[in-house]
């Protein structure tokens, strides 16, 4: 692969804290290698800002290998940038060319208030999991792992849904800021396994109620979430969620 170097203009959202109004600031970076990751390009920019005596740009990041779900930049109008099935930390600069202008914003959603610059508060996701995204089994209760055979296809589908990293790109991409793809991934993961069966009904009802409480919008099935999901969680999860929800709503004692 041929490597090249580029000069870029960056328009980045700056916001001191949650109550600050925020604004775009423009920066220029030079000599960016096509081998760098997008966040390494931000490292270069931040070092430059520190050198100039300015405050570096705050952004969330941790594992930098696409699995922790911490990084969360909205790049040129798309969560995690132009590459399909890729987190911001795995986006590399060969996706851009010399002279490009790149616009970087935080996730925008009522349920995800901005904490500083590009960092948002995603506690709402944890609250949704608290509402039922688990199997109620205490440590020490388990039977032998092979006592419960699981159809391989089901296990694979469950795994595909469980691959969700909880980054929130689905919410950021949705015009209604709906958390349906996130929620449906967890519901699918557990609904596809026999271990999830005993709490099947309460789980889906409670998690949806919590999602509404957190201030996420409704799902209108436009599929923007699926298109940007770095783990390629499928819209089928939402279909499965709807099926689970209807089933639970019609038969639950709670309703």
């Amino acid at each position, binding site marked *: *692969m041929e490597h090249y170097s580029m000069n870029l203009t960056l328009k980045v959202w700056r916001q*001191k*804290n949650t109550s600050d109004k925020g604004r775009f600031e423009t920066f220029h970076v030079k000599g960016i290698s096509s*081998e*760098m*990751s997008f*966040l*390494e390009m931000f*490292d270069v920019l931040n*070092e430059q800002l*520190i050198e100039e*005596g300015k*405050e570096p740009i*705050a952004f969330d*990041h*941790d*594992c*930098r*290998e*696409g*699995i*922790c*779900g*911490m990084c969360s930049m909205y790049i040129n109008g798309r969560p995690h940038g132009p590459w399909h099935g*890729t987190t911001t930390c*795995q*986006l*590399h600069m*060969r996706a851009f060319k010399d002279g490009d202008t790149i616009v970087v914003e935080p996730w925008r959603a009522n349920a995800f208030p901005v*904490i500083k610059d590009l960092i948002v*508060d995603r*506690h709402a*996701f*944890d609250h949704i*999991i*608290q509402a039922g*995204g*688990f*199997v*109620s089994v*205490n*440590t*020490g209760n*388990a*039977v032998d*792992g*092979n006592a419960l*055979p*699981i159809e*391989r296809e089901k*296990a*694979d589908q*469950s*795994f595909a849904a*469980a691959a969700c*990293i*909880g980054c929130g790109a689905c919410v950021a991409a949705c015009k209604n800021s709906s958390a349906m793809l996130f929620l449906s991934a967890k519901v699918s993961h557990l609904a596809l*396994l026999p*271990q*999830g069966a005993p709490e099947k009904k309460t789980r889906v009802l409670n998690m949806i109620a919590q999602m509404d409480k957190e201030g996420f919008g409704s799902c209108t099935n436009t599929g923007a979430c699926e298109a940007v999901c770095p783990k390629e969680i499928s819209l089928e999860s939402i279909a499965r969620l709807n099926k689970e929800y209807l089933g639970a709503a019609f038969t639950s004692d709670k309703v």
Partner: protein
Amino acid sequence: MLNSKIPPGKLEEKWTDYKGHVKLVNPANKRKLEVIVVGTGLAGASAAASLGELGYRVKAYCFQDSPRRAHSIAAQGGINAAKNYQNDGDSVFRLFYDTIKGGDYRSRESNVHRLAEISANIIDQCVAQGVPFAREYGGLLANRSFGGVQVKRTFYAAGQTGQQLLLGAYQALERQIALGNVTMYTRHEMHDVVVIDGKARGIICRNLVTGELERHFGHAVLLCSGGYGNVFYLSTNAMGSNVTAAWKAHKKGAFFANPCFTQIHPTCIPVTGDHQSKLTLMSESLRNDGRIWVPKKQGDTRKANDIPEEERDYYLERRYPAFGNLVPRDVASRAAKERCDAGYGVGTTKQAVYLDFKYNLINKYGKAEASKQGIENPDTETLVKLGKEVVKEEYGNLFDMYEKITGENPYEVPMRIYPAVHYTMGGLWVDYELKTTVDGLYALGEANFSDHGANRLGASALMQGLADGYFVIPYTLGNYLAGEIGTRPIPTTHEAFENAEKDVKDRIDKLMNIKGKQSVESFHKRLGKIMWEKCGMARNEQGLKEAIEEIRTLRKEFWNNVRIPGDIKEMNNELDKANRVADFIELGELMCLDALERAESCGGHFREESQTEEGEALRNDDKFMYVAAWEYKGESNWQLNKEDLIYEEIKPTQRNYK
């Protein structure tokens, strides 16, 4: 002086016996006892959830925005368990033996045996939680092999095993949070342990959003804060992984054991330039199917696919016919370094070797698929196509990750890989109960030193983290807390809390007032360079002595010239980093001191002065059969305490993977 509190009796009965006689806390009293858990990776999340289930009042802390993001999530390949589902001769004893041998006879027999005993329960627990492990067509759990062993005992979920296990523990933790048994503090970093009358009674932490310092009381404190690989700047650790919690505990009296035992993982994506911020692992599981080679000719510039079979040197298969590509990590790393140093390296930097899947793609998977589908005499192209599909299922996400980072397609051309810092076997010294040398202060998972000796085998970190959290601490902590049921919560206005908070505040003020010229990052990079060159894959007396001097100079410069923009009472990522790097610098010095003192080679610690004729690590059991537990005595001043390692079951020998 050091009492490891190993229970008496036969090795295989110690843990059962311990559990049968350990003190218990009744349910009503558990409600009155508060436990602090720092870190929410596999060890922390599993401990916090399990203790919450038991009824303790738990407070858990992490520096990330959610406990689900701890770096355990990045573990790829798998988790070991002595289930013997494959009928291939596995047993608790085998897992115990492999782990002791893999660790080059520098771990405690009793702890490792307990780990092997517990391993099977972990798999059961995780399955019950709904962890979607890989399965065979019959619906039963699948296994694969890892380095340093000759059985298939590794359970996995594609290349995302750590993620799935952590989500299982995270979900259990969130359930306890919802039930009110655990209070979660995210974006919090621990800055000190509060010790009152010789017992750990709380922590001081900084709220990373507001910048405020907070005081938290606990009847006991559990550090599950992970390893310190980031002392090398470049490692496979997450950017935020740090030693601060463990280091602060060390300075408050917890001994730090075997700090120089660092694992350099053989298969990582090579460094491309100075901009590099971290290194990415390519799972060891790939060595099941990938063959490692370099050209037989020095400085060969041909493309990998243009080099004919007979001109390739499969050096691991050549040197270690019994284990081949599946030798332990330390052995594989040194062998790669040896070839590159001798001028056989590949790629632009010549600091890389090939990891090639072509052979197994065709011969193992392609042929099996063809046979399954009844295709007779398939041509190579068909075999490649069929093989690819299987490989995609097994390791798809890893291949995609490789392609995103390098721009090369590993299904077509071999991966280029090179060793990188991955894990630290050293850590806080703990006894059999996982208690440090400070009463009431415990260390779990990678943060402690206990189970992996001088080299950890693949797929054993997840096993140890979860063993400590799910199945060890719920018993051993009770043994301590049973004596604390009469202790009322100590108000955080106590002078020990006041003083600890003042120390933290003073240090932060001092850092902010330096107003120097160099960024935190630049100091971290310089520290990493010293550590990698002089305390990395190969170490010698002269280099280590130089490194200690260089680190001392660097520390002075840091405290005189670091520049931290922004304010204290706000979110300030540079200040967070500065606090961590200041501790890494101090730790770096201790690592070099430990490496200097241990004038033998063992596992990942390779002293050039101590090697066999064939260049293998040469132990000196007469002089170094001990755990080096360092006691902090003041700036650049440590006292060495030794815990002798006594082998009753296994007779240490020169490790042989040939």
